[in-house]
């Protein structure tokens, strides 16, 4: 399995801070999620980190077993 991590308001949308998923291409993984969550994750302001490293081209992500993929919405000001 691989792990998706949801930060900030995305955790509310997901109903949890993380979710285990089958490995595979990110595009396929997203289709297994509730549509509202998948749409929220695809917001262009959401940054993505694979195993603690920010990813610039998320389209190319292939999740391997044990990978951790974090979805990072814009950080809070103030």
């Amino acid at each position, binding site marked *: 399995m691989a792990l998706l*991590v949801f*930060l*900030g*308001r995305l*955790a*509310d949308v997901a109903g949890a801070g993380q979710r285990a998923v089958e490995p595979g291409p990110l595009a396929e993984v997203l289709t297994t999620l509730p549509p509202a969550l998948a749409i929220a994750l695809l917001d262009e302001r959401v940054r993505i*980190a694979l*195993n*603690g490293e*920010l990813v610039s081209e998320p389209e190319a992500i292939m999740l391997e077993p044990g990978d*951790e993929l*974090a979805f*990072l*919405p*814009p*950080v*809070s*000001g*103030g």
Partner: protein
Amino acid sequence: MIDVRLLDQSFNPGQLAGLFSQAHPGLGGVCTFVGEVRGEGGVEALELSHYAPLTLPGMKALAQRAAVRFDLMGILIVHRTGVMLPGEPIVCVSAAASHRRAAIDATDFVMDHLKSDSWFWKREKKGAGWTWIEPRGDDYAAKERW
């Protein structure tokens, strides 16, 4: 000395800043900023979440950048996570340098970048429940000053 900490318990900024200052004999000036949870607008609590693999490394990189840019003798960055009540400290930044301008500017620089670049997500509790705090345009503007 570069000292960067992410704490999930309440802390005493004066004590940390005092020890930090004492660790730099020969300094000309030290500037310390402490941010606290404001209780205005009926806020009962503030929660900061973070993402461990990015947040502390990001703070360390910022400290390193400030130390080089302002030729600091030392820099302290302490940030809370978790649930905090009004009046509790959230952040403490202290910069020690030979000259006052470097110490003040470095503290200003670190605060501007912590606010807009750091991996923290905040939500606040008012009577009805928790609300996420959105990014603010003027934090980006603050960062653009540098």
